[in-house]
């Protein structure tokens, strides 16, 4: 029994050591990191949209972490923005960094596509806007009504993607999600980024999806 116990205790100790280096130390270092002054906390609606993003698993296809251009040149050149820093995520809980780019990075989607109508139309059916997109449509975030009533957010879907008759109206969830998309705008300068070139504005010319 002594030896069996020793193996198990040894195994546990090694894991605790790893926890120290990979969990505790990064936590201490990163929680001391400066929060960029221009970063705004999420509004209640944006936070709700973030929850819709989580519930529907957008993170499995989209990252939110442009890499340093000196390391991965494509990221910035595609208009995805400057490299992100820990402070950018100060209000993110849980984090949504993502590990796939089946779709493009969304760290600055709010700056690239600032129109809420674009966002809603794209959610209703991505192919209505981008030919050949493989992103799923989210019809369940919308209602199909004969006559929109006062206060309804009508989304005009170009044929043939819309319904034959009646109107498509965004639900609260769809609106919240679209607002969250618009909130994803990190074009402000990051104070902790040493490699950032002198304060020029982010180039916005490259508005690939």
């Amino acid at each position: 029994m002594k030896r069996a116990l020793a193996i198990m205790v040894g195994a546990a100790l090694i894991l605790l050591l790893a926890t120290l280096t990979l969990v505790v130390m990064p936590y201490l270092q990163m929680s001391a990191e400066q929060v960029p002054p221009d970063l705004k906390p999420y509004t209640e609606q944006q936070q709700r949209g973030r929850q819709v993003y989580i519930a529907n698993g957008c993170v499995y296809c989209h990252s939110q972490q442009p890499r340093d251009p000196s390391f991965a040149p494509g990221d910035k050149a595609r208009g995805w923005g400057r490299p992100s820093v820990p402070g950018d995520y100060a209000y993110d809980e849980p984090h949504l960094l993502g590990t796939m780019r089946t779709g493009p990075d969304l760290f600055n989607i709010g700056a690239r596509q600032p129109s809420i109508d674009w966002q809603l139309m794209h959610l209703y059916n991505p192919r209505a806007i981008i030919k050949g997109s493989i992103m799923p449509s989210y019809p369940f975030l919308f209602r199909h009504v004969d006559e929109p009533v006062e206060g309804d957010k009508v989304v005009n879907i170009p044929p043939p993607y819309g319904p034959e008759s009646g109107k498509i109206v965004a639900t609260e969830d769809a609106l919240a999600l679209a607002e969250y998309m618009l909130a994803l705008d990190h074009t402000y300068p990051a104070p902790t980024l040493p490699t950032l070139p002198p304060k020029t504005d982010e180039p916005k010319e490259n508005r690939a999806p």
Partner: protein
Amino acid sequence: MTPTIAILLIITFVLSTVGLLLLIWTIANNQFSHGQAAARTIFSPGEEGHSEDRARPADEPFTGDTSEQAQAIEARWTADQSSRTAVLTWLSSSVFWLLLGSFFGLASSIKMHLPEFLTASEFLTFGRIRPVHLNAVTYGWASMAGIGVALFLIPRLFKTSLVGGKYAVIGGFIWNIGLILGLSAITLGLSDGEEWLEFPWQVDLLFVVGGAMCAAPLLLTAANRNVEHLYVTSWYLMAALVWFPILFLIANLPFAFPGASGATVNWWFAHNVLGLWVTPIGIGIAYYMIPKILGRPIISYQLSLIGFWSLALFYSQVGIHHLIGGPIPTWLVTLSIVHSVMMSIPVITVAINHHGTMMGNFGRLKDSPTLRFVWIGALMYTVASLQGSMEALRSINVITHFTHYTVAHAHLGMYAFLSFILFGAVYFIMPRLTNWEWPWRKLISLHFWLVSIGILIYVVSLTVAGWKQGVALLDAAMPFMDIVKMTLPALQARTLGGALMTLGHLVFAFHFIAMLMRQGAATEQPTLFRPAIKENAQ
């Protein structure tokens, strides 16, 4: 010298010191000097040289030449029977989750090239069925089958009956309830939002309890053991069962880790599920099955111990290679890359042992289903791991990180390595628990070919397409939509490969149920790929 580099140096120093101390301790305690004697503990007296699978037509079952040897065989049969209920609970559940997970995987795959497939319902949107797939196959299939096999091996390894098997049965029920609740939560949109940690933390407690209830019989049985040496398989199994509850508990501490540090905890956990949970189980099983079926001990027991401790030291620190280029301190990424490369040490030692023991015996792959599945699994462990070490290098990772290449690697590891070994183990275990042979040889063959061809298509197509996708993503001159179009054929090929794998799983599950219901003719001979003893011998 910047403070971060200083920190890095201190860590590396502490690590190597601890590693060294451990090594000195093991040597001082004679762990190494038993050497090959320990490698032989898995054989009952006189059994060495006889295959437990009787893979060769000429092999007679070994029943013992003396009464003492016969008694040892008898005792092993008793040990096997002692774990029966517990093992069957975990294995049957795992087969169910494998089927469920396969259908969700296949549906996810189809959705990636047919984006209008099943979009009407929020419960079936890609972003929900994909995590259901991952969690069902990881915590349902791989973990439950792994625990089931571990419960079978523990009494054998300790040469005694399983003590406290009923805790494991109860643990199995709790685990299943956890899966049902967790997967339903994801479907209803109540995910916690981090990959590999989607289950709401309240549900996660069930897994900690269920897992701990399996550790209980392990400890009780270890206390009762009748062997002097602890065979290397028991090292891996014991460590895995210690690691998992700790990992799962820390990573799920609700709301403890916000923002970017949450990402480090997330990936520290996710890779530890792979490295410190499913991998030790997989390697441990191969360390048992290969020598047992060949009837010869592993070639170097010393190496196997070095492999074990170096796996523990290095694998526990690799998690951050999932965040290369991400918004986290550079020293942290570097630390994980260094350890990822160092992982080649345990990988190569394990490879020498597994494949070295096979040397000269490859002919038996033609007969023994267990050996064929397990050895191919072991080989794919070597391949996936060496690939992983490369993939962790900055220069490679910058290309592969966000692409389908990673998904191919994931299935090479979780499927071609782990699932193959689990399949092989199930083929070995079931006849010994039910005292019934597998009814249809052809079905085993069919299962093998379906899943082998399926995973081959899966991995090759996504590896090639993922690499091209990664190269193209770095070049902003290539429009994003062109890259999407470029990957479409591979995504379709994945659906084909995945459909073959799913079919294979249906065959496997059917055969498993038939086995439980004792279908087919009663026979004394093991069901092997080729007609065994009588039909061949004359």
